């Protein structure tokens, strides 16, 4: 089952830490958002392989927007 990882806050993508095909564990950061001078990681909710990355660095994302899709 594919699972969409959503941003839990509004912010600017500071860093994309995962790559398509990466195996991530639950709790691993997949991207890092920057909001109000704070760096906030968005973490994988479960283990899986990264199927798709929907954002790039510097892009603004809204709370609830899908940033990464796991296989």
């Amino acid at each position, binding site marked *: 089952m594919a699972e969409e990882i959503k941003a*839990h*806050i509004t*912010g600017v993508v500071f860093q994309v830490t995962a790559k398509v095909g990466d195996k991530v564990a639950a709790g691993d950061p997949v991207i890092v958002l920057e909001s*109000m*001078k704070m760096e*906030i990681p968005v973490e994988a909710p479960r283990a899986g392989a990264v199927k798709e990355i929907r954002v790039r660095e510097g892009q603004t994302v809204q709370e609830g927007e899908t940033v990464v899709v796991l296989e």
Partner: protein
Amino acid sequence: MFRTVLVANRGEIARRIVRGCRALGLRTVAVYSEADRDAPHVKDADHAVLLGPAPARESYLSVERILAAARESGAEAVHPGYGFLSESWRFAEACARAGLTFIGPSAEAIRAMGDKPEARRRMAAAGVPIVPGSPEPVADAASAERVAGGLGYPVILKAAAGGGGIGMAKVASADELAGAFATATRRAQSAFGSGQVYVERYLEAPRHVEVQVFGDTKGTVVHLHDRECSIQRRHQKLVEESPAPNLDARIRRGLTEAAVAGARAIGYVNAGTLEFLVDAQGGFYFLEMNTRLQVEHPVTEEITGLDLVAAQLRVAAGEPLPFTQETIEPRGAAVEVRVYAEDPARNFLPSPGTITRLALPGGEGIRLESGVVEGSVVSVHYDALLFKLIARGADRAQAIERLARALDTCVVEGVKTTLPLLRTITAHADFRRGRVHTQMVEQGAFHG
């Protein structure tokens, strides 16, 4: 005295500085990013210059664009406020090269105090107590263990190039040291590009007490008493007050004398703050020096009746300090709280958005410093501080009572704020008794 001042900042502090300039009859120039076109600080100033896009790197942090704005607006002086470029010695130097007066200390003082190991060395040489520890970074786990053995456990490992708590590790005993040293070195390397760490004695639940100092170009240095800023989260202050409560007169005197000695030793000019940690035994230790106006300067203004921004402008223009040590007399007490667009229920996650409703209090002894109005958009690009609420009283109890009442009438809708936590803190028995320390928020003292 210069006639036109460019305020290289935004939000509440830009507005405060514009007011300070007005008090001296000076013309003001605001700068702003595309995200801040409708911001209150832009409307307050006599003239405003667009710097560039919303990201701070392309606007408020762009030295080139700020200098160009000063040129085109005919500004002769630049006030950096706090944050952004205020502690950049390169910016101070660039202002001087461009023929502009930088309203703050010398580039050399900013550089020296910004380099934390050098600041410690310079202050120790001036006789200011520093936290006992290794004077230089330690080479390996074995030397860290030797230093720690001499200091006594617990100790803390700190990144030499670091800040913000990154790379810090508390070590409770000798057998934990080698592992903690390896981790701290690795984290420091990846965060700051330097794996150097030093060892310090770990202070258990210390208080944060700081001293406002002020120097002029004639070599006079005075202090404007102390401020208690222990209630913090993530090393950022939430509540500040002056004078610090329950502080032994001997410690208070020791702090102000050390602060003046430290500032004098580096030939400090303009407003600055020496921050100290105070432990339960009454020992106090230099933490760092902020070479700028502080966010919490209003509590000092409220108890001294002085205008720190106006004094900054006068001193930057080469005038002597407008006050002497003998005439600076603290009266009553003042407490400030910072209202941030953050959600205390979600571990202080930022809460950007549009302020759909804003009702701010007033009344006897209440001062408000706000960067926002109803309808303001709180952007992801900048610091989350919305406004500060300051209450003054004949004594601490009255100041807190006024503050608590003012907090009760505050309404902010559209974004989450620290208001609920601030209400809990001001009602809390330990806070009311003045029994505070720096780890209270993290330890959950104000939960429920």
